[in-house]
Each structure stands twice: as C-alpha cells, then as structure tokens.
C-alpha cells in the first residue's frame, strides 16, 4: 500500500489525567469517506479538534499528504486544505450567508488593510479579487440550494439551513480534506436525504476526502467507505461498514445489548 493521503498515528490526549483519546490510529485514502462512530463522550469530536489544531495532542502524530501537521495552529492547518464543520453550529451569526461563505475564501484572498480600504473603482485590485471570489461562492450557493438565504443574516435562519451554510463555508475553502461533525443532527428525514446526496456529490465531483462523525447509523453505513468505531477514547475496530456493524464490541458499546444496529436507527 502506498503512502496514505491522511493518517493519524497513536494519537493521545488527556485532560487532567483522563485519557480522552487513547492511542487512536487510522489512515484514510484519497477520495474516501471515512466515518468515526461511537457513543456520546467517546472522544470523536476531540479527535477532530486535534486534527484541526484546536487541541494539542499529548502524543502521537497527524500526517496530511506526507506532511506532519501535529500541533500546528488552526489557521495553518486550514491553509493546508483541511476544513471542518462543528457539532454545535459555529457560524458568524451577524453576517449574511454570502459573507460567511466569503470568509471561507479567506485563505485564497490577498486584500490587506490598505488595498481594502481604498478600493473606489471597479478596476482596483481589491474589487477585482472580491468579484472573482464572489463568483466562486455563488457556485457553492447554487450547489447547496442556498439562494433564498443568500443575503439573510445566518443567525435568523432555520437550524437545518444553518448546518448547510456551515457546510458551504467549509467548501468555500476548497478543502482537500473535509471534517464533518454530525452534519445531520437536527435535520428532518427529507433534509437528511438531501445531505447524503450532497456529501456523495462532494466526494465524487469535487474529489474531496471526507472524515465524518455521525450518529445516524443508516447514513453512516450507506455512504462510508471505511468506518472506525471507538469507545472511551480507545479504538474498537476499523473496517468496511458491514464488518464494523456486526462487531460484538461495537454492538455492546452502542446498545449495551445484543441487537442489530440497522434496527436501532
């Protein structure tokens, strides 16, 4: 097997003596959808926070495209092409959808204080750049069907739409690796269907590799190429969905009793 696109090796992090993530390793091939499942408090989001640089791991390493990105500052990691969404929406609530997505273009833009403050003509560099990136953002708005929310402040949008705006903002960064933290939480079944469709689109058409944390087992089993199950910060098993789904420890961790996951969701 050649070098993995993205891999985590022996990742550990502890908070006040408690091991929140305990020797977790996995690797993701380019273009795959890789899901992490586990009960609440198993340490899934903590792994994401380590990857995106919000937490510093106690030990272990995170390798992205052959480069060690462990412990880099979050904004450095973003410039490497890793974007994420949050479990409890972290949008810029007093900006419009458009502006939120434009912020996603931040790393691709150059306008500084002086050129930003002094654009008074259509032909100026800042205005040109602004227009070019607005065109790109407009494509994402079309892709995610967000036209109606385009100029609304995101704080006033319905929950499901806010989740989409967050997804759109992450896409605006043109990520190579996209971390989705419970994207379907709070959505109704119709919205969930759309979401599955879009995630597939992002994988197939944009060629983005996706790391997914999700509680909806049906969705996980449908779209994932590989699944990692963890509990108490420790990995249980990693493999293709069918295998992980049937693993007795996974069933025990999830349900506390013998029952197939398919029926539970």
């Amino acid at each position, binding site marked *: 097997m050649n070098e993995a696109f993205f891999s985590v090796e022996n990742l550990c992090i502890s908070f006040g003596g408690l091991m929140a993530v305990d020797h977790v390793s996995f690797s993701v091939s380019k273009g795959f959808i890789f899901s992490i499942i586990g009960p609440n408090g198993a340490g899934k989001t903590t792994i994401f926070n380590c990857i*995106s*640089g*919000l937490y510093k791991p106690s030990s272990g390493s995170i390798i992205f495209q052959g480069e060690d990105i462990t412990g880099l*500052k*979050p*904004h450095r*990691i*973003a*410039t490497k092409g890793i*974007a*994420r969404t*949050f479990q409890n929406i*972290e*949008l*810029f*609530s*007093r*900006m419009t959808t*458009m*502006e939120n997505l*434009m*912020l*996603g273009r*931040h*790393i691709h*833009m*150059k*306008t*500084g*204080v002086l050129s*930003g*403050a*002094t*654009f*008074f003509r*259509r032909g100026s560099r*800042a*205005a040109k*750049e*602004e*227009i070019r990136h*607005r*065109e790109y953002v*407009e494509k994402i708005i079309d892709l995610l069907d967000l036209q109606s929310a385009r100029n609304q402040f995101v704080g006033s949008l319905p929950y499901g739409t806010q989740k989409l705006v967050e997804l759109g*903002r*992450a896409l605006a*960064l043109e990520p190579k690796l996209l971390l989705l933290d419970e994207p379907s939480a709070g959505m109704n079944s119709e919205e969930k269907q759309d979401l599955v469709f879009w995630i597939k689109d992002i994988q197939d058409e944009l060629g983005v590799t996706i790391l997914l944390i999700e509680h909806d087992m049906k969705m996980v089993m449908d779209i994932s190429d590989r699944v990692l199950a963890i509990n108490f910060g420790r990995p249980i098993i990693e493999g293709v969905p069918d295998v992980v789904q049937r693993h007795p420890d996974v069933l025990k961790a999830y349900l506390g009793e013998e029952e197939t996951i398919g029926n539970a969701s």
Partner: protein
Amino acid sequence: MDMKRDYYEDIQLLDSKVLWFWFLMLVAALATFPFIAPTYYVYMANYMAINVIVTIGLNILVGYTGQISLGHAGFFAIGAYGTVMLMSLLHFPFLLALVAAALIAAFFGFILGLPALRLEGPYLAIATLGFGMAITQVIGRWELFGGRMGVEAPALSFFGIPVMTDLGRYFVTATIAFIMVLGARNLMKTRVGRAFIAIRDSDIAAETMGVNLVYYKTLAFAVSAFYTGIAGGLFAFLLGFISPSTFNFILSIYFLAFVIVGGLGSIFGSVMGGIVMTWLLLELDKIQELPLIGGMLISFSENFMTVAGLPNISSIIFGLIIVLLVIFEPLGLYGFWIRTKIYWKTWPF
C-alpha cells in the same frame, strides 16, 4: 426590488443614479455649510468630524472585532502629542506629522493587542485601562511633552497654505474625516473586515477557516489606534493647546458612549453617534442657558444642589443615555434608523 446584474454592484458604495445624486448633494452641502453657518457651528462641525473618526476607530475594535478598550484616550493622546511634537521639534509638515503620529499610535495599538490575545472581558478591560492611564501619566511627567502644563499646537499650514481659522480647519478636518469614513466602510466590506467580524462572532470558527487570530486581533487594535491617532492629531489643532488632563479615563468612556449610542458594528451608526453626541456634549455645557429648563435647573441647584456643580449634569445625562440605550436599544441610533426605514417602507401597514 431591483435586480443586480453584476457582482460589483454588491460591494460598490453607490449602486444607483439616485444615490450618486444624493452623494454629490451631500458633498456640496458639506462644502458650502461653513460659509453660511456661524463660526461656533463651524467649530462644532470640526469637533464632530474628529469624534466621528474616533468613534469609527473604536467601533472597529469594539463593535466589529468584539474586543473592549477602556484606554482609547491614550491613543488619542499619542496622536495629539505626536503630531504637535513632530511638527514643532522635527519640523515635519502637518500631513506627514499627522500620519506619522497615527502610525505611532497604531504601533502602540499593536503592542497593546499582544496581551489582549489571551485576555477576555474584565481582564482585557483592565489591561487597556491601565494602558490609557500609563500614557497620560508618562506624558504628564515628561518634560519633553511640556509636563502637566501641556503644550501649544504650532501654526498649521496645509501644503503651504496657512490655516488659522475654524473655517480653514474645517476643510482639513472634514476632508480627512470624509475619507476615513469611506475607508472604514470599504475595509469592513472586504477581506480584513470580514475577518474582524468573524473573530467577534466565533473566534474558533474563524481560526479553523484560516484566519490568523494573532495577526487579525493585533491588526484590529492597530487600525483602531490609527484612526484614534489621526483624530487626536486633528484635535490638538482644534483646541490649539493640549495638556495631559484632557486625555483622562472619562474621555475613554465618552468614546465608548459615542460607539454605543451610534450602534455597535455600524459605520453609519458611528457617524451618527459621533455627530449627535458631540452636539449633546457641547450643548449640555451651557444647559442653564436653555429657555425654560435652564431657569428651573438653576433654582433647583440653588435650593438642593450647588450652582457651581450644575455643568456636571452632562455626566448624569450621558450616563443615563448609556444605561438606557444598552438596556432598551442595544443597536443604538443605527437600530432606530433601521426601524424607521422599515416603518416607512411598509407604511401605512
């Protein structure tokens, strides 16, 4: 609703012929105003222009980036003293001195921004407050700066043309203020401004989207200090004389009051806030001259308070305005403006 055909229309300042017309009318009105208004009102307009610049500067920090500062009088002082000193000691021409002094203020803003990276709420408040106090203390005790007695502003000339009157100063001050307002508006509509707002709304999300928090938080302090420094430099010439006691803690609070009254996170609000509050500030100084209320206040003061203390009523009114606005209209004048606009759009329903 009008259809937009071009992305540029989203970001340009004046997107219709009607707006262009009003814009030109505004410029014309601002240009003719000082010739027909009495001198006192020209002086007041200068004062307003200066406070508008400060208010925008502070709003960039407080309203847009979500940081607090109780030390902006310090940057104001740096701007004022810097300009005067650079002109009288190093014989800089006015405009160069003004910009240089504002850059010094910006540098101090950057320095102050460093500890601010890790501080929140009350901790940031006390750090900025300490900074403001320290600046006035140092200036007040340093002989170079004229010590407690203060210094006089040198004669002002603009590209070789001597500027001696309020009318002359008006053209300098108002032009600079006008440019700075437009600059702030542009800045907030582009990449840097969006990064500021993003930090205010969710610093964690901003970080993970590639916004360098260290850089942009210190930048916000620097830009804010730059604006305040420019205003300070202009202020030195408005008064003609500056002393450390002018730049006290209360002044910092007044600046905050301007921002709150205008509306947090709104350039237009800041313009309104700066204008209205300056008017109020100057009018309240002579409250006893008001026709009916003045007499009542004086007799009330004679019986229950002191007449000498009457001017302090402005402090009471300012305080009340701050408290009531924060409680009932957190968006300030800008909030009023938006609601009035909506009211008239949908009138009579």
